[in-house]
Each structure stands twice: as C-alpha cells, then as structure tokens.
C-alpha cells in the first residue's frame, strides 16, 4: 500500500479511537516543517487526526512518547513495536494501556544518504512511488530507489512488521534476517582501525544527549550521566568522558536495545555508535539465543536469573571463579 493510502487509514483509525475514547492520545507522524522530515505528532482531538501521515521520512521511534498510565494509541512498525515489547517486559508500560496501530515498513530514507547521492542538490520535496523516491529541487526531478538510501538500521532490520499489533494496516511485508554483517565486518578490522573509527565518532559528540533523549529504552528517571554524587562520568568534552558515556549507555542497553537506530538519527553532528549496540545485540544473540523486542514472552536475558545459572560465584561469593 502506498504511503498516502496508509496515511489515510492511520488518520481514520486515529479519529475513531479518539472519538470512541479508546485512547487519550494517538502518537503518529505528521509532515515536517522542512523537506525530508516527518515529525512526531501527538493527536488528542479527533478533528486533528487528518494531520497524521506515513512516508519514508518517519525517523523517530515513537515508543519514546508512551507514558505509564496514559491510554495511548501508537502508530508502530517493527522497530517501534520492538521497543514497546521491551517496555512492557520492564513493567514501564501496561499492554492494556496501549493500542498498537501496526504498519508494515520497508525502511526509512536517510537524508544524509540522499545528500551523498546527489551532492549539492537542495532538496525541496520528495515524492514516493513503488519503492522509488522522486526528489525535487534541481532543474529536473531525480529519482533513486528507496532501498539504496536507507538508514543503516533499516537495512539491517530483523523485524519489519509489528511484533504486537491491535489494528493492522496495510499488507505485511516479507521478513528477512540480515544478521550482523556490520558487526562481522567491524570485527575483522585491525584493532587500530576499529579504535580510530570509534574515536572519530566520539570526537563529534557535543554531549547534547539527543541519542539518550530519542532512545525509547533510555527510561531511567535519573541518568548516570547526570549524577553528581557520585559522579560516574565527567560531563565535558574530554575524550575519556565522552567514551565512558557512550560505552556505559550501550552497556545499559545490552539485551534491551531495539536496534531501531533512533540514537544515530537523532544525533545533530552525525555520531553513529550503533556498532556498539549492535555488537552487544550480537553477543546477546549468540550467548542467550534471543533478540530484544522479538518475543513478548521471552525474559530479558540480562535481567533474568535462575538457580541453574553457571555464574555460581554470585551465590557463593567465597568461591573463586575458575
């Protein structure tokens, strides 16, 4: 189904849910104020439902806007739903408070990739049809397949249809599991190269915390990075502090990260450290045989424990680890 068709059906569902009182708010996207941007839209009045759209520039993870105790309907594709699944497992949300308006997703377009593809072009508008983007702004419109300008996280997405869904819209798209080619490629680099790549990303960080703020799973009421007693990590631009922040954030997300890429897309200076999250997701997948967000019923591997766990040093602290 085309974006326009989905937009109309989302608006229709939103209007109905608000009118019948099934939700206090519908969380979706509306057209953004600049080209190549859709923007989160929180609709509370049925008459505003017509603002809701669905297109290739819906970059944010909307699960970020769900709040405990608020009856909300949310437009969710695979990545949004994966985050919702984890939030429910962590008891931050109640399943019964959420109406999932499910949309299939073939990936979102990366404006930076479009800029790389058409250097110097000042894009004024983009149309979509049948997997092609038609880009306006030059003397003649130019086109590019959506597949060739996807966000990295969308290329690597392991679940494109919603995991949980109440109101399915559109025809499901075929699933595929691309695995972790990025992690493997990175691991195959010499150590120095890996270090310099990570350092180059860290060097761009301005500590604005857009990554943390955009992350649907960064839900701590008080972040370690803001703590002054004790101060776990310095707040300035020193490379060791920047590194400590990003590494600690990634570790906090191990086994929980929905791999949506919202952090990288939120970054105003283009820091992309999703390789850290992906590496941890790959480890969790290998060690525990699970991926965050894909199974409502599976416990979070790093939050669950059992007496059969091999780490018996926790039960018998006097015993040395072998």
């Amino acid at each position, binding site marked *: 189904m085309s974006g326009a068709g989905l937009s109309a059906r989302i608006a229709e569902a939103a209007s109905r849910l608000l009118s019948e009182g099934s939700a206090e708010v519908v969380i979706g996207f509306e057209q*953004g*104020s*600049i*080209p190549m*941007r*859709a*923007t*989160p*839209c*929180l609709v*509370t009045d049925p008459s505003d439902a017509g603002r809701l759209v669905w297109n290739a520039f819906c970059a*944010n993870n909307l699960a*970020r*806007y769900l709040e405990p105790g608020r009856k909300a309907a949310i437009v969710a594709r695979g990545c949004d739903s994966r985050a919702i699944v984890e939030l429910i497992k962590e008891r931050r949300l109640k399943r019964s408070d959420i109406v999932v308006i499910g949309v299939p997703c073939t990936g979102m377009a990366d404006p*930076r990739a479009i*800029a*790389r593809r058409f250097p*110097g072009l*000042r894009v*004024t508008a983009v149309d979509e049809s049948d997997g092609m983007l038609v880009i306006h702004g030059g003397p003649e419109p130019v086109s590019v397949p959506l597949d060739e300008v996807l966000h990295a996280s969308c290329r690597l997405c392991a679940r494109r249809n919603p995991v949980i869904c109440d109101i399915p819209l559109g025809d499901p798209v075929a699933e595929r599991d691309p695995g972790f080619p990025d992690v493997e490629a990175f691991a195959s680099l010499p150590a120095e190269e890996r270090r310099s790549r990570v350092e180059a990303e860290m060097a*761009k960080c*301005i*500590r*604005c*915390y*857009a990554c*943390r*703020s*955009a992350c649907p799973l960064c839900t701590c009421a008080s972040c370690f990075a*803001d703590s002054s007693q004790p101060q776990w990590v*310095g*707040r*300035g*631009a*020193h490379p060791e502090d920047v590194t400590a922040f990003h590494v600690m954030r990634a570790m906090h997300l191990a086994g929980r990260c929905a791999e949506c890429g919202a952090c990288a*897309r*939120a*970054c*105003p*200076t*283009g820091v992309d450290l999703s390789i850290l999250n992906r590496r941890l997701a790959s480890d969790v997948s290998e060690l525990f045989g699970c991926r965050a967000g894909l199974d409502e019923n599976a416990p979070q591997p790093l939050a669950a424990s059992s007496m059969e766990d091999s780490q018996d040093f926790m039960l018998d602290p006097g015993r040395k680890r072998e």
Partner: protein
Amino acid sequence: MTDTIHGRESLVRLLEGILAMPGVTVYAPVAEGDGAAFDRVLSASEALLDSSGAVRPPRQILAPMTETLLAMEPGGSAVDSVPAPEPTILFGARPCDARAIVFLDRVYAGGDRIDPYYAARREALTILSIGCREPRATCFCTSTRGGPLSVEGSDILLEPSGEGWIVRIITERGASLVGRAGLGSSDGRVTDPAAFPQAGAPRDLSALRGRLEQAFDDPRWEALTAKCLGCGACTFLCPSCHCFDIVDAEEDGRIVRSRIWDSCQFKTFTRQASGHDPRPTGADRYRHRLMHKFSYCLESYGMPGCVGCGRCVEACPVNLDIRLLLDAFGGER
C-alpha cells in the same frame, strides 16, 4: 591589487595567502562526517569553501565546549589559565555566525565583569564572512534583524557578485588583514541586498516580542512543545547560546576547574539542591529558551539571542521548529 575575487580559485588563493601569513591560526569549515565544522586548517585544501555553512557554529573557537579556568599541580596553588592565543582568523563564517559573535561579545565581554578567557580569544580574532547567495530551508535571519549580507560582527565581508565576491572591509582589523593578504577592497555597496533571495518574509521583531510576552501563560505551550525530547541539540548547535556550568575534576594528576557547556533544556539546569525547580516541565524549559532569545535578550543585550541561522531547526531530532512556535505565539492574532 584587486577588490573583487573572481571564482573559486581566487577564493582558494585568498585563503592560501592568509595561511601563509606568519604566526596566525586559521579556522574554516572542514568536513566532519556528512557535515561541516569550523576547525583549524593548515592548508586551503582542507577547507570546505563551497559549503553552505558549517553544521557546528564557530562559538567553540571563542567559548570551547570544555575550557580550563584554573589548574593546580599537586602540592601547588591554583593558577588561572587565561589563554594567550596567537592572531586567529575565522575564514568563511556566514553573516549570521558573525552576528552571533556580536551577541556573545555582549554577554561575555559586556557589563561590569569581563570574562577574561573569552576576551583574550576575542581580542585575537578577525572574522572574514562570506555572504549568502541563497537561503536554506531552515534560514530565518531576516526575522532577527540580520540578512544574507549583514556586516555586523564581520571584519571583512565577501559579498557574492556574479561568480565571485566583492571584498568589503568593515573594520580596521579587516583592513589590516586585507592589506597583509595583498587584497584591495571596494567602497560603497554596489549590490542591492533586495536582489538576494530572502529567507521568507521577515517577522517584525518588536511586535513579536510584545505578543510573546503576552503569551507567557498561554495554555498551548504544553501541547505545542509536547514532542520536545528535552535534549540539548538546539542549544549546543546554537551559535549564540552561552550557558555553562563549572565543574572540578582531576586530569593527568592535576586538579582543574573547567567550564562546560550547559543547556537550559536539561532537567538538571535549574533544579535546586532542595529538589525545588522553578522550571519543572519541558514546556517551561522550551518557553524559557524561546522567551530568552526573543524577549529577555532584547532587554538585556539590545539584540535578540537568535540570529536565525536555522541550525536548531536542522538539528532538532523531532523537527520542533522554533519558527512555527514564534508564529503560533508571536504571529498576528
């Protein structure tokens, strides 16, 4: 001697001429990932002269993200670390960037107390701006009393003309640099600024201010800012935001007191030790940022705290566009 720069090669030669001057540090836009940032350049080839401006503003040249104020060696006493920079040239600022530095001057170097760290860097700085040929989708400088050919803050303005630029000397400092770099200059404006494409219809700043002040208790603030994530992208990408915190830390065996950028959008910004917070909600904090720039700064500094560069519009992860809020609260009623 020439007073006009023809084509890109001439611009490169101008930068080379400046780089060849002994004892100067030159900052220019350089590639950073897919964007650009002002950074120190050693050769003209590093500079992104065709870019339509840097993603990151030049403020870090004058007010770095992290700056040591005092340092103490073990067993020693604290010494201040006011910098003594060599002459520094900012090459390729946009006119809005230069105006932002005028604003920073009023904050840091105005009033009874001069900030010596800022003042030392500022004293060493010469600003060469390049006028804008066309606005970007995010530009709104003309709503903040600026414009694509604004000379405020620049020592030299390269004014676009045909395929080249006319060299405008604005200050003594600019004249000195032009002399040393072997350029002449033009007197009198030959280009009609109205001939340049404008960034939308200018907003009337005085009327806007009045309406914003009346809208302080408007119930729509909450709904219109509900999507704000509370990050600091807008403030840290802003060329004129100046807020900072002061922190102590140990670095390489020394104890240092540094200032670091801080953001009024962070929950921790005004929260007191008692837990009381005069601006407890995201809407309070967003309103403060907007009111600060378009009302309070006009009172305190005689100019808006915004130069309309559009970086916050571009940077906002959720596309919360300050222009739409200005129009919602400050537009015609």
